[in-house]
């Protein structure tokens, strides 16, 4: 009995497996994503071969036929998917609200608000070819991702009406990506808990700040944390922009001294006093200052005296955007005076700042809220950013993480 039974068992297990696998593979075969049997869908996914992008659309407003034509085309699409835009980040909350009030025919899909640049790029890659609401039309990513995204063919070019007033150093000549705002790193300190607020990087090493300092993100992948580490090294190195090794060494010292906590500082933990000292972009810190004030918590912001760093974020339209006209409408809004001033309201410096100031369109009260500093601010190039980001994210765990994990 057992011999016959064993054959039957294997026989049917095999048939069952092939049968169901075939059923699953069939849809892919029908739609010709791949032309090979079961193993191929996996292979295609591994090779990372993206489907060919749809033909590029109009390069600017003129080619699109003017603003009215663009609005009409966007009306037909009736939807816009943005990704990784937290409400309190450079006042994207108001930006989204105002945009949707202006173009009320658009349904907004607010994807993954707390995602990082890598999540955004991944979303484009994995949704390439589908038209659902989870496919992002536009992205706002760290500076280095503009370049890599272009090289991977993930963006489609578009030059907004105000293209010429965007500085050349922060945009792609072909129009694939373009800087939108920038900020400067600073110390954000809960001054109710910390009586003597640190003024410079060297102060952070003092024993009075034991167990009080935390980064604003994961140093193995978050832009904000990586720039903080980098800035520490640059400042303590006399302003020389290196590959991040000096920063790692500084943070290793911080960890050894017991001043560094291995946790992510958030608005709640700063206000509570658990992570009273943190290093974040000024626009994030200033947004928290206002919120905390309302709750009766005092937060101080300090630009470290020996120097800090600035970081630019860039916008891009996905090459696979299912709703490219709505995407272009969004870009036109972001780079309009109204949009740029909204960034300013969120304490971030809009990329067209010089142009706006020259034309005198910035309200005086708004101009007064712009974070200003006299300390030396490092402005790294693309190559430097790539090198330091890779170096810091790769070596943090070995150089510093091991000191923090007990």
């Amino acid at each position, binding site marked *: 009995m057992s011999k016959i039974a064993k054959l039957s068992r294997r026989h049917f297990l095999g048939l069952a497996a092939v049968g169901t696998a075939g059923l*699953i593979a069939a*849809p892919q075969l029908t*739609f010709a994503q791949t032309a090979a049997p079961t193993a191929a*869908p996996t292979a295609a996914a591994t090779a990372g071969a993206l489907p060919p992008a749809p033909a590029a659309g109009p390069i600017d407003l003129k080619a699109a036929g003017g603003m009215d034509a663009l609005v009409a085309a966007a009306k037909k699409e009736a939807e816009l998917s943005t990704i990784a835009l937290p409400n309190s980040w450079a006042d994207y909350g108001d930006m989204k609200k105002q945009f949707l009030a202006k173009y009320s025919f658009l349904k907004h899909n607010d994807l993954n608000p707390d995602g990082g640049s890598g999540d955004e790029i*991944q979303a484009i890659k994995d949704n390439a070819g589908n038209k659902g*609401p989870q496919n992002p039309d536009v992205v706002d990513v760290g500076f280095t991702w503009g370049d890599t995204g272009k090289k991977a063919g993930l963006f489609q070019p578009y030059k907004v009406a105000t293209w010429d007033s965007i500085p050349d150093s922060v945009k792609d000549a072909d129009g694939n990506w373009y800087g939108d705002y920038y900020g400067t790193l600073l110390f954000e300190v809960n001054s109710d808990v910390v009586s003597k607020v640190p003024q410079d990087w060297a102060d952070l090493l003092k024993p009075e700040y034991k167990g009080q300092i935390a980064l604003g993100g994961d140093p193995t992948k978050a832009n904000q944390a990586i720039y903080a580490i980098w800035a520490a090294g640059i400042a303590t190195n006399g302003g020389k922009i290196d590959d991040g090794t000096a920063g790692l060494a500084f943070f290793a010292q911080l960890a050894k001294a017991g001043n560094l906590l291995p946790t992510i500082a958030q608005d*709640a933990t700063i206000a509570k006093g658990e992570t009273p000292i943190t290093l974040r972009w000024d626009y994030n810190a200033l947004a928290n200052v206002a*919120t905390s004030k309302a709750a*009766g918590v005092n937060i101080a912001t300090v630009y470290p005296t020996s120097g800090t760093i600035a970081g630019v974020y860039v916008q891009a339209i996905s090459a696979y955007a299912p709703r490219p006209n709505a995407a272009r409408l969004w870009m036109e809004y972001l780079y309009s005076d109204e949009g740029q001033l909204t960034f300013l309201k969120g304490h971030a410096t809009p990329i067209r700042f010089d142009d706006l100031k020259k034309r005198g369109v910035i309200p005086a009260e708004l101009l007064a809220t712009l974070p200003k500093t006299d300390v030396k601010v490092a402005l790294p190039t693309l190559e430097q950013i790539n090198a330091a980001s890779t170096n810091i994210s790769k070596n943090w765990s070995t150089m510093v993480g091991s000191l923090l994990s007990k």
Partner: protein
Amino acid sequence: MRRASFWSWLWLALGLTYFGVPLLATFLFSVQANRGLISFDAYASVLSAPDFARSFLFSFRTALLTILISAVLLVPTAYWVHLRLPRFRLVIEFFTLLPFVIPPVVLGYSLIRAYNGTGLTDSSEGVYIIMLGAYVMLSFPYMYRAIDTGLTTINVRTLTEAGQSLGASWLTILFRIIFPNIAGALLNGAFITFAIVMGEFTIASLLSQPTLGPYMATLGSHAIYEPSALAVLSFLLTWASIILIQRIGRGKPIAAR
């Protein structure tokens, strides 16, 4: 056996302390939105936000569907494995534990890619089906373990034989004999599944579905007291829902001891 010993009360007391104190700490923090006063401002701002009820109900419906599909898939399978395919048990247990090691982000992206050509990913409704499938997968470890434990304590073979000797068909045995006897275990598995679906964020966010998870994340991120208020609220609401399911589940006779 209804004598409650000292030890029972002790374990209960310890358990309640361990579970209660962190919740209490969260609650205490959430009412500090107005310095110096006990205030429920944070709760007001959470509840008054639009679409809170809508997201909650959307997640609620999704959770119930998940439990249903999961139970329909797993109860016959676990029963069959106990009865006829004991060697297959390990294979199934391995598969039911796999959802733990696949990071939800990876699961989400892989599913989108897998179904990219099928048209399922082109609409919100199609993507909902994918999300439902993912949630049923996520519930497998708990549902299967609960059902398996339930089946282990009842004598499956004997019950089946007795049922067969009384002339019952397989379906009758499954629904009128096995099911009522493991209903208690199944219900416990359902509770966990319910909580998982209500709180799930990553996959819902990747698939752009209006569930409670992404909604709460958008509301709470970068706010100070709202996240804690949200945590307490969602805990209480989920608990209330589970008690509701418990009450409804009591309608069927459960073999109580």
